[in-house]
């Protein structure tokens, strides 16, 4: 049976159209993102590893080498088993630093454009035979199915179609930071197609040719040499070599690197891929023996490399042959698309851009996009040219392994990336050049010799013969051993012989995660707008604007950001993002040129701490043993500080905020993110002054401050302490604890008001009596008045009535003044310290005396005011009167009828000390220290609230003064008895 060429080509076009639709649906969001980003979709997209070599060539490989063909899959299994220590670190690096290809990775680690160029050229050289292999597999499969030589134009048409596809779905976005959802979906779809096709053919081989597994086993029993030929390969010398080659190829081949790292949508999908990809490959590989044995049993005339098609043709079912063919097209097209995309990105970043950077007037994005498209076309064309050059001189497997040995040359470099910080660019470049030289000598020159392009084999044949005699190995072990030996030796020797540059040390720290120090220096550009301005000169205005905007958005920063440490982070972020656009080396060059760092390297404690915390957070799952325990302890201490019910602020030696806990965030409304690294003097008002002034005040370690936040008055107590490192001389900064007293203050104000009302209640009887007397006088005078009285008598009576009325008004006015909460200089929630005025204390004492005298009990106490009219303090008159009322009331309560209570004042530096003395029963020594405690009273129940003295104490403290008890005063009888209260208040004009 054979098929017609026309329908087959139509099938290719139809299949690629279907692929186009899948990719388009993915890109347009018609396919659920959950499906595209699913770990199994990611795994299937990694199935791009299985190309037409695997699809067709494995059967031929199995026929000639037996189970040796399994090494190509088993090497992948071993590499993916090492996901946590091999693939995950590379994925982290590529994601964090926007590295999209092996060339980016090596150029970033070794800080060398030459390394990037060399890797790109070597990758290109290694990939071209592989691309040629795919094109040849498709054209040869057409020949098998049509049983005639297909015209070359078909291969060309296939290449053109794939080029268009690769451009449409791989080089479509302006920004390379965006993932190609459609591409991932399409490649996963291709993997499904080739798996289904190969299993379909194997199913026919098993059930159509052998009548099931039993039939196959019967055939194997009858033909033991077939099974023996299969098991033979496992014992041959190439087994370990091919395992190593497949191990390297599984993540270093351009297409693998691209799908594994650059197109990874969710990093943790790698965990699923670690077992699911080997399982996918197992399913592909298990189809090989049945197909091979069925072909042998049926004595198919097709070449072993194309037994898959031969079996399908043997079925006599055109649809099965078509399915088998489409599976092969799928394997080849997936490889071609992804490889050309990956190579075009490398060529652009490491060959084209460094050679001719676009004019800033041009749109860099557009330039990069079209550059990539052009390169895709050129790479496919080069692969096609290679196909013509080497036509039919090498088997499919031979061309594939050529590429595998090439990418294995990057293994020593990878060791330097992940594990060996001491590796240098000289070592990497030297090793790669040496390894590549051996690769060319041992594999490429014989290839060219076989193709008739060179006359000599340059001694390879003789050396290989000697190797075979010595080790029993073949050309692959020969080439792999000597190239890797040369490479690794040069890599290690040159690395140890040379010193890494500062940039290399920094990059090695980033790669190996062994550096816990943040980068040094601050950016000279002081605002994001200046960043845009500087970058515009190289990137062009639009690109610069967009890149700065993106970097700000990535970091959650504001366009008005001015904090030096945040601007340094912004600079690093821009470098990372640009790395995805123009490669790591050019990105670094652009940033170093336009966003220069200040000459004096500087690093604040806040930066260091935050950098270390970030690094520790990222490395948490890698910490083991003591390090993990210490990290837990660190987290515990941090949580304690963060959740402390008091506001905690730590500042470094440069007064920058190092710690800003949750409570202070709630109190201030300034988030931790906004405050960290910010010098305290640049915090938003009123916190700049509040914290800055407190830090400046070397004398006090505890202060009470009132601040207005919005429309609200708030009271805070601030405590501070130095953080000193006992092992070092320099200061570790200071820590400030902030206690919000607003609630307490409000309660005190309410209590004060209640106490005033209670005082009025206690005065009520006296007040009634005081008002009753003048009322009686008014009443009597009025009754005695007669129309017959003369004008003088009436005037006299009227004057008496007015006089008595004034007495009543004064009493009422005094009561009203006292009852009020002091609206002039206080708020409902306590005193307004900023509204304090000079108060003449003698008037205040008089008023208090008048009030207390209203009380019946106090009537027989003699109050004496010795306070001079010049005694003036800064404060709230109403509240000061309340202090005096409370003290005089207590004095009156303690005194006997006829006793004196004296009030005097003395100057004490810039304060006045008012003394309130009585000669009552005094206070026993054992309760002296309790009398200022709330609700503590020595009076009978119902006689006192226990709030008078505590409130007086609080009010005096609010005025910046103190209330204390002095020695018992000397009474007129010469004995010391009673009590003296001392009210120390700042003199007017000296406090605020």
């Amino acid at each position, binding site marked *: 049976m054979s098929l017609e060429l026309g329908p087959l080509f139509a099938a290719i076009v139809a299949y690629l159209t279907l692929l186009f639709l899948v990719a388009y649906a993915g890109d347009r969001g018609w396919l659920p993102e959950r499906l595209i980003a699913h770990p199994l979709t990611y795994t299937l997209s990694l199935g791009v590893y299985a190309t037409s070599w695997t699809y067709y060539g494995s059967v031929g490989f199995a026929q000639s080498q037996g189970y040796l063909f399994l090494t190509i899959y088993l090497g992948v299994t071993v590499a993916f088993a090492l996901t946590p220590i091999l693939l995950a670190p590379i994925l982290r690096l590529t994601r964090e630093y926007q590295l999209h290809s092996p060339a980016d990775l090596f150029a970033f680690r070794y800080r060398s454009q030459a390394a990037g160029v060399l890797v790109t050229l070597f990758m290109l050289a290694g990939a071209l035979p592989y691309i040629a292999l795919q094109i040849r597999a498709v054209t040869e499969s057409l020949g098998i199915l049509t049983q005639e030589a297909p015209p070359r134009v078909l291969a060309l048409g296939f290449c053109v179609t794939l080029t268009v596809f690769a451009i449409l779905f791989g080089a479509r976005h302006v920004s390379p930071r965006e993932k190609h959802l459609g591409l991932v979906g399409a490649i996963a779809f291709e993997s499904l197609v080739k798996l289904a096709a190969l299993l379909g053919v194997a199913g026919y081989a098993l059930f159509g040719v052998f009548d099931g597994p039993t039939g196959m086993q019967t055939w194997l029993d009858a033909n*033991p040499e077939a099974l023996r030929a299969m098991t033979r390969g496992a014992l041959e010398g190439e087994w370990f070599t091919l395992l190593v080659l497949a191990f390297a190829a599984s993540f270093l081949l351009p297409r693998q690197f691209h799908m594994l790292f650059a197109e990874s949508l969710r990093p943790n999908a790698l965990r699923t891929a670690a077992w699911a990809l080997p399982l996918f490959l197992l399913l592909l590989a298990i189809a090989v023996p049945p197909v091979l044995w069925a072909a042998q049993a049926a004595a198919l005339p097709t070449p072993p490399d194309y037994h898959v098609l031969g079996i399908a043709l043997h079925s006599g079912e055109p649809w099965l042959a078509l399915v088998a063919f489409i599976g092969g097209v799928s394997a080849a097209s997936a490889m071609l698309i992804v490889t050309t995309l990956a190579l075009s990105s490398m060529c652009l970043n490491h060959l084209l851009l460094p050679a001719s950077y676009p004019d800033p007037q041009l749109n860099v994005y557009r330039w990069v996009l079209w550059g990539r498209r052009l390169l895709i076309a050129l790479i496919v064309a080069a692969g096609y040219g290679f196909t013509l050059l080497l036509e039919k001189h090498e088997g499919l497997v031979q061309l594939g392994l050529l590429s595998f040995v090439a990418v294995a040359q990057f293994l020593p470099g990878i060791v330097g990336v992940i594990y060996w910080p001491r590796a240098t660019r000289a070592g990497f470049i030297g090793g790669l050049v040496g390894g590549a030289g051996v690769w060319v000598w041992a594999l490429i020159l014989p290839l060219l010799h076989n193709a008739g392009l060179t006359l000599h084999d340059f001694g390879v044949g003789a050396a290989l013969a000697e190797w075979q005699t010595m080790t029993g190995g073949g050309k692959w072990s020969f080439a792999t051993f000597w190239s890797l030996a040369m490479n690794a030796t040069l890599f290690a020797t040159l690395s140890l012989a040379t010193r890494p540059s500062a940039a290399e040390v920094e990059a090695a720290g980033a790669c190996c995660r062994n550096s816990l120090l943040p980068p040094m220096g601050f950016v000279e550009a002081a605002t994001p707008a200046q960043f845009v301005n500087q970058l515009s000169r190289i990137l062009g205005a639009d690109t610069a604007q967009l890149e700065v905007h993106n970097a700000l958005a990535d970091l959650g920063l504001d366009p008005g950001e001015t904090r030096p440490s945040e601007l340094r982070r912004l600079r690093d972020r821009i470098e990372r993002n640009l790395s995805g656009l123009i490669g790591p080396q050019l990105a670094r060059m652009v940033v170093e040129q336009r966003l220069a760092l200040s000459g004096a390297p500087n690093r604040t404690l806040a930066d260091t701490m935050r950098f270390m915390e970030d690094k520790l957070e990222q490395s948490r799952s890698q910490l083991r043993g003591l390090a993990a325990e210490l990290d837990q302890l660190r987290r515990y201490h941090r949580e304690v500080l963060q959740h402390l019910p008091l506001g905690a602020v730590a500042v470094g030696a440069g007064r920058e905020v190092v710690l800003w806990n949750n409570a202070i965030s709630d109190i201030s409304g300034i988030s931790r993110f906004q405050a960290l690294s910010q010098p305290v003097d640049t915090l938003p008002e009123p916190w700049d002054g509040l914290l800055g002034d407190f830090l400046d005040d070397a004398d006090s370690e505890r202060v009470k401050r009132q601040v207005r936040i919005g429309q609200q008055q708030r009271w805070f107590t601030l405590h501070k302490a130095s953080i000193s490192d006992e092992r070092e001389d320099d200061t570790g900064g200071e820590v400030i604890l902030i206690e919000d007293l607003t609630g307490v203050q409000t309660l005190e104000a309410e209590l004060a008001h209640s106490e005033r009302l209670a005082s009025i209640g206690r005065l009520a009887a006296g007040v009634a009596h005081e008002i009753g007397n003048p009322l009686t006088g008014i009443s009597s005078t009025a009754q005695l008045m007669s129309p017959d009285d003369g004008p003088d008598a009436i005037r006299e009576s009227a004057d008496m009535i007015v006089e008595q009325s004034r007495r009543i008004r004064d009493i009422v006015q005094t009561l009203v003044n006292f009852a009020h909460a002091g609206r002039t200089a206080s708020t409902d929630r306590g005193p307004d310290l900023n509204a304090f005025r000079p108060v003449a204390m003698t008037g205040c004492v008089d008023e208090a005396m008048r009030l207390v005298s209203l009380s019946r009990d106090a009537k027989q106490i003699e109050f004496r005011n010795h306070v001079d009219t010049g005694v003036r303090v800064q404060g709230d008159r109403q509240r000061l009167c309340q202090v005096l009322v409370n003290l005089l009331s207590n004095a009156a309560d303690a005194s006997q009828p006829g006793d004196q209570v004296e009030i005097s004042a003395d100057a004490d530096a810039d304060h006045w000390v008012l003394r309130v003395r009585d000669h009552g029963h005094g206070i026993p020594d054992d309760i002296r220290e309790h009398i200022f405690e709330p609700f503590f009273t020595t009076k009978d129940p119902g006689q006192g609230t226990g709030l008078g003295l505590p409130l007086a104490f609080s009010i005096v403290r609010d005025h910046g003064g103190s209330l204390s008890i002095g020695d018992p005063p000397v009474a007129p009888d010469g004995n010391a008895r009673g009590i003296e209260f001392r009210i120390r208040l700042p003199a007017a004009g000296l406090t605020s």
Partner: protein
Amino acid sequence: MWRSPSSTPQSGFHYDRVVLVLLASLLALSTPVVAWWSRDGVAWYLPYLIWLGLIAMIALALRGFRVDIEDEDDNPR
């Protein structure tokens, strides 16, 4: 949520497992054990069973493993 210092690391992942899987892989794939499973008379699918066993070991070993990446929301852009 903070856990006491004596508890296991947050990820619950142990790197020892990776070493064990690597050793098992090396034992099964690059020592004379290869000669054992590819000798005459064994079932043709034995290599695939061994391979399947390795895959199961990988899946078990990687339970609890997470890729820690800075600034990642684990969502595609």
